[in-house]
């Protein structure tokens, strides 16, 4: 009886706990997780952590190098870079997460359905995807903004939409490889519905490359949003956002390295964190590598 209880208790902890337990065994994955969590927390508690007001400027102190009061120095308008980075995390992470979510939640189903049903469906869907891929991503995003209008929300939607074809292709190629496996045929012979086959067998088995791709996309998304902001289409100037800060500091890189370096470093570390986490997640989600 006691054994039974213990067993059911173990069951209740569920698959999320299971994945975390396996994740915790990998040092690099844990580093990634720590980075991501630290950034998320600092974004969440920005007002408590930032030493100064990110919008308070002082032209007299512009481009001041790092000091005790201003650990990362001041930017071209004399604003505290550290505070701006902390506040900027809110927008930059949001951009990354929303862009990737749009890409995955729209792109993956398109790719899976296209590959699973094949034939004419596949042909038509893939020509659409080809058309979208033929445009350079940033141009496609520009086009979409022209249609949707300027603003941060529209930038996120536009960049998100322009990543859809990449996920659609990725999901399609994984599913094409999986759908000819015998376990899919077994599911059909059992009488499983198309929906069940897709959700239960195809998607879980084709997720690994998508997870890795999405962590790499984090950086691209932040930089694209910054680029669009630079063109005046996204985040408008005073708002603290990493990409915009990077662009702003670019002009002064010869005289004041810190203005562009620190936001750039932040993007780099964020991407690294998500990437390590994604890599670890892929392994942790694979039952074949379970110990």
């Amino acid at each position, binding site marked *: 009886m006691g054994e039974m209880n213990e067993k059911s208790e173990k069951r209740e902890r569920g698959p999320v706990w299971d994945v975390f337990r396996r994740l915790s065994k990998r040092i690099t994955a844990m580093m990634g997780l720590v980075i991501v969590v630290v950034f998320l927390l600092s974004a969440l508690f920005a007002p408590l952590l930032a030493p100064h007001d990110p919008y308070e400027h002082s032209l007299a102190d512009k481009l001041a190098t790092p000091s005790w009061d201003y650990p990362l120095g001041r930017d071209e308008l004399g604003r505290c870079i550290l505070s701006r980075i902390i506040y900027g995390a809110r927008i930059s992470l949001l951009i990354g997460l929303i862009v990737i979510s749009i890409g995955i939640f729209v792109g993956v189903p398109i790719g899976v359905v296209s590959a699973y049903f094949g034939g004419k469906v596949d042909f038509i869907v893939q020509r659409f995807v080809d058309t979208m891929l033929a445009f350079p991503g940033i141009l496609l995003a520009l086009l979409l903004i022209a249609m949707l209008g300027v603003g941060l929300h529209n930038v996120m939607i536009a960049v998100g939409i322009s990543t859809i074809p990449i996920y659609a292709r990725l999901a399609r190629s994984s599913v094409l490889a999986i759908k000819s496996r015998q376990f899919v045929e*077994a599911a059909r012979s059992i*009488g499983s*519905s198309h929906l069940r086959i897709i959700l*239960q067998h195809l998607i*879980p088995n084709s997720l690994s490359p998508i997870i890795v791709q999405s962590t790499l996309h984090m950086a691209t998304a932040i930089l694209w949003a910054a680029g669009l902001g630079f063109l005046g289409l996204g985040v408008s100037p005073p708002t603290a956002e990493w990409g915009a800060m990077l662009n702003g500091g670019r002009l002064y890189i010869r005289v004041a390295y810190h203005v562009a370096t620190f936001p750039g470093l932040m993007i780099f570390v964020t991407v690294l964190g998500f990437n390590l986490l994604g890599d670890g997640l892929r392994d942790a989600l694979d039952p074949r590598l379970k110990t």
Partner: protein
Amino acid sequence: MANDILIEIKNLSMYFPITKGIIRQQKIAEVKAVDGVNFFIRKGETLGLVGESGCGKTTLGRCLLQLIRPTSGEVYFEGVDLCTMASDHLRSIRQRMQIIFQDPFDSLDPRMTAGEIVAEPLRVHTRIRGRELREKIAELLKIVGLDPSMTERYPHQFSGGQRQRLGIARALAIRPSFIVCDEPISALDVSIQAQIINLLEDLQGEFDLTYLFIAHDLSVVRHISHRVAVMYLGKIVEVANRDALYRVAKHPYTIALLSAVPIPDPIVEASRERIILRGEIPSPIALPPGCNFHPRCPIGVEICQKEIPSLREIEEGHWVACHLA
């Protein structure tokens, strides 16, 4: 007599088109994987289906279950034609017929535990859930000789034989009456093969199952089958009761096939007469005119090159497709 027939196949054909061109696809040829096949299977019997690689055995099994929709012909399951059935209706009839696959490493979803794999058919076709479902899974695992404590394990943690048992448990879960065994033992070690064969035989007795046993190993087929059908290039060339077929085979292809079985006695083996067929198996895209087998047949005559022999009953229960039989 007619009442105990579970499955009857009439004129079943499966042609795979070979197409050319991207925009306007043109059919340039066809692979005749299954070509006008007729046979029946009685309730509770095992029909062995033998033939060399690429002769269409597996395609025939898939067509029978409508996993591939055949090009033409009829498949009657308990008197109902499956080929004209809508796919919705077909899904519900799938619980009556199941399949055991050849490759136990490919036929189980690597991301599902043993329990989930066996539970899937029950989730699709029944309302059994929760505790009752877990008990049912444990029972099924026990039936196929696995320890119920293995429920939480993943397929890669099982050996080949255990995985095949898991595949059998999945096929049995919804109590089918008919199972296609698609070379269920050819991917296993010899020592495991016998265990799986015995398991299949035990289950047949216990659950009143009917098997279509596809294989290329003639001695295994002899052991398990009641009747045997021999296939060559998409056509059935001979069907007979097991003993009749192994004793007095009529079709020259069957005779050649049987002469290739080694005998485990070195003296007899040394004096064994082997019929070595000339040439290669013709391409199923460009079939020879007349009898498919005539280019390789040791006894072929002129008529064989012109007329396709039909499957005739030459003795009771013994059908042969040969002009000379």
